[in-house]
């Protein structure tokens, strides 16, 4: 039994992957909060990651089929066009905004990790009959 093939675990681990990548981008933004000319960055939406993994370009039914060039469900780094302001040195990172996002991501990560753990508990319950 592969845990990742069960959609529940796959979704939870994708969510954690996406949140980890987002948190990394926030860390980069904060580290470069005083770098002249640095533009705040963001990542592509979680929905895009899930859809990309599901369709994965073209479905193949034979080994000789070309897999197609659809994006493989990775997380893209984009420029953050919702940054609150631009400072005089061309830097668009706002520490408050980034801190807000970092907190939000931290909470969501905890949620995803706990869900993953809950899934394990359910499986254990089904197999052993006790927790």
């Amino acid at each position, binding site marked *: 039994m592969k845990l990742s093939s069960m959609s529940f675990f796959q979704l939870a681990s994708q969510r954690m992957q996406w949140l*980890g990548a987002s*948190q990394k981008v926030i860390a*980069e933004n904060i580290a*470069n909060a005083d770098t002249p000319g640095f533009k705040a960055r963001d990542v592509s939406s979680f929905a895009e990651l899930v859809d990309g993994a599901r369709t994965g370009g073209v479905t193949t039914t034979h080994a000789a089929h070309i897999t197609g060039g659809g994006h493989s469900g990775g997380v893209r780094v984009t420029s953050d066009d919702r940054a609150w302001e631009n400072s005089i040195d061309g830097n668009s990172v706002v520490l408050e905004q980034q801190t807000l996002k970092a907190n939000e991501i931290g909470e969501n990560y905890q949620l995803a*990790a*706990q869900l993953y753990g809950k899934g394990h508990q359910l499986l254990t319950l089904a197999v052993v009959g006790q927790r």
Partner: protein
Amino acid sequence: MDALKSIGAVAASGMHAQGERLKVVAENVANADSTGDSPGADPYQRKTLAFEELIDRDSGASMVRITALGRDQSPFGRDYDPAHPAADAEGFVKTANVNPLLEMSNMREASRSYEANLNMFEAGRRMRGQVLDLLR
């Protein structure tokens, strides 16, 4: 290197850069009254530094590094003090081009940014801890 690991490295590079900036501020404030020791000699010249984005080769993460450690080219101040060893023929002493107000606000910003990076480090650590908790 995965995302969670590089969060710590990125935050640490930010902390290092802000720490260096704080050091330069401390040097400037400490030398705010340093003058030359011979008649007409130049006093302490304010130090400056700039930040630059640095792409880490291992992880592809964008870190920050210090570039262009330099000296402030703005003109020195002039004080009338004929008894001073650095006084020129007219009795004027050149004083350092350090503005304490500017240095203080610079210091505030550096320590706030340092704090933000520290929080980021902590957030990354917590997330890694949650993954490890899955093993329990």
